[in-house]
């Protein structure tokens, strides 16, 4: 029977034909836990009478939401997880490597064709390399840690096809914001979102990660791109490349199909307080901002920082705003450092923090006061997420963030670079 990528992954993993709608207990290839949802998952594992995790080598542990620990409870939680890692023989990246989703992929801990769960909603990011990856809660994770398996209902899929070439300073973030704007915040609920078309085929893995990362913002259970030569090159030396032959069958069944022309797309903005409140940047030009955040698991990679630096082009950031730059991982930080990008940002007046989630979740630093406006390359603009419930968060691409950081107001990046 013709199959989607998701159906192929489950069929291969289960060694029998699996279709959307099937419910089964499937083995998992990797499980990710971080400092926010991890302690509760460990507690649940214990409450389930768990004593030894199913396979320490398949557990990805790190701290990224509150690092370095920003409170005594955060420090206690991290100590609790360190102790668990030592007891169970789990490699813990601790606060050293960066944001969970970036680290899981760049360290080769997930592979094409894998079934992966993570205690974070943006676990769907790993679909960029062709893994079926989905966010779960802590109790489900407790079960997964104990049994190495979890119950799944195999989702139906959406097919979002993009063709053509982006305009200058338009890219993956603008595309995914446009798609969320069209489909709404629950347009893909309980479904896998397949991204396809020649625009996606030409995208780098980091750009694909940006798209897959935000599948959850349309309610998706997973976002996924069929592995190809770009995936193979990325995997090379990083991981054994799993199952690359996962291209969906041409007559696979989709519950919804949409087509996009990349050339028609202009920079996009998601206005407060829903991610589907999306419009062209031109609708928002001139909106004053107090803080610009460039980073997060959506847009904190080297190529995002490079794009921002290119738009900045030696100019200074507007003096009366805060510009916070947070690379997504130590590896990406070092790349940016060696390329001179960090110097560029600091000279321009920015604050560069060590790899972590940054202000995205409003956990560690960079919170907003009532009445303040943030422009952010992260993935959520929910009320109160980055501080005061009376503050506003707009979402955009790294190019738009950089252009706006120069002028101090929302600015079309095509006009400044």
């Amino acid at each position, binding site marked *: 029977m013709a199959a989607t990528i998701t159906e192929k992954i*489950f069929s291969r*993993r*289960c*060694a*029998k034909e*699996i279709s959307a709608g099937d*419910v*089964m*207990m*499937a*083995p998992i290839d990797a499980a990710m836990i971080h400092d*926010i*949802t991890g*302690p*509760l998952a460990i*507690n*649940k594992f214990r*409450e*389930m*009478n768990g004593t030894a995790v199913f396979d320490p080598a398949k557990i990805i542990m790190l701290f990224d*939401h*509150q690092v370095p620990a920003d*409170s005594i*409870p*955060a420090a*206690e*939680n991290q100590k609790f997880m360190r102790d668990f890692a030592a007891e169970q023989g789990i490699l813990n990246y601790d606060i050293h490597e960066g944001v969970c989703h970036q680290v899981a992929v760049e360290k080769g801990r997930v592979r094409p064709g894998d079934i992966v769960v*993570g*205690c*974070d*909603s943006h676990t769907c990011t790993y679909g960029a390399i062709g893994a079926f990856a989905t*966010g*779960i*809660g*802590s*109790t*489900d994770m*407790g*079960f997964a840690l*104990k*049994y190495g*398996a979890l*119950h799944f*209902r195999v989702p139906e899929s959406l097919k979002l096809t993009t063709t053509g070439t982006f305009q200058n300073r338009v890219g993956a973030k603008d595309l995914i914001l446009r798609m969320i704007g069209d489909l709404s*915040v*629950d347009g893909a*609920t*309980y479904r896998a979102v397949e991204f396809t078309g020649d625009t996606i085929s030409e995208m780098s893995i980091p750009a694909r990660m940006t798209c897959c990362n935000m599948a959850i913002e349309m*309610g998706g*259970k997973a976002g996924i791109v069929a592995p190809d030569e770009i995936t193979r090159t990325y995997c090379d030396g990083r991981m054994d490349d799993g199952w690359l032959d996962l291209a969906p069958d041409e007559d696979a069944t989709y519950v919804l199909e949409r087509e996009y022309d990349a050339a028609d797309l202009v920079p996009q903005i998601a206005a407060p307080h*829903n991610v589907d409140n999306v419009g062209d940047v031109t609708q928002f030009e001139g909106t004053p901002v107090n803080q610009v955040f460039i980073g997060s698991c959506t847009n904190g990679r080297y190529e995002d920082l490079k794009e921002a630096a290119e738009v900045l082009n030696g100019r200074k950031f507007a003096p009366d705003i805060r510009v916070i730059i947070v690379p997504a991982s130590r590896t990406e930080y070092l790349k940016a450092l060696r390329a001179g990008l960090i110097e560029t940002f600091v000279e321009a007046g920015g604050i560069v923090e060590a790899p972590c989630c940054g202000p995205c*979740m*409003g*956990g560690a630093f960079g919170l907003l006061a009532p009445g303040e406006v943030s422009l952010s390359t992260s993935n*959520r603009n*929910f*009320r*109160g*997420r980055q501080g005061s*419930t009376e503050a506003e968060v707009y979402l955009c691409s790294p190019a738009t963030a950089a252009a706006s950081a120069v002028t101090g107001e929302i600015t079309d990046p095509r006009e400044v670079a």
Partner: protein
Amino acid sequence: MRTWKFGDDIDTDAIIPGRYLTLYDPNELAAHAFEGTRDEFSQEAAEGDIIVAGRNFGCGSSREHAPIAIRGAGVQTVIAVSFARIFYRNCIATGVLPVICPEADTITEDEPIALHFDEGYLTAGERILTVEPVPAFMRKIIDAGGLVEYAKNITEIELCTK
């Protein structure tokens, strides 16, 4: 019993703000439930209260703190037009009953609600509204009182590979 009515797209940041995620105790989390969104909830919600909401309740983060905070405040049942996927699963895992009712948004706070989940309906005042059944596997977890209780007693699981 009181009904707490909410609109569409109530996200997990609204249910429990990110700054409280170092907490795990249900009572401590309940003290901050809907803080900044509906401040009286944490003061006034009592055991047996029901939350009624529109579309996409619980969208956003995978944080299980959200259903734990709701349960800690005394709410065992959330009735919504639709739920975000992770939140829906987290409810079942933590012992909150998520009830999908396509007409939930028509229910008002002053209508008495009686849930007949197994029979597939609820009454709101005089009206009878349909509720969706849950898959058999999910039902087993609900009946056990959550995933911990369900998982405690199983020594072997039946994998799809068998």
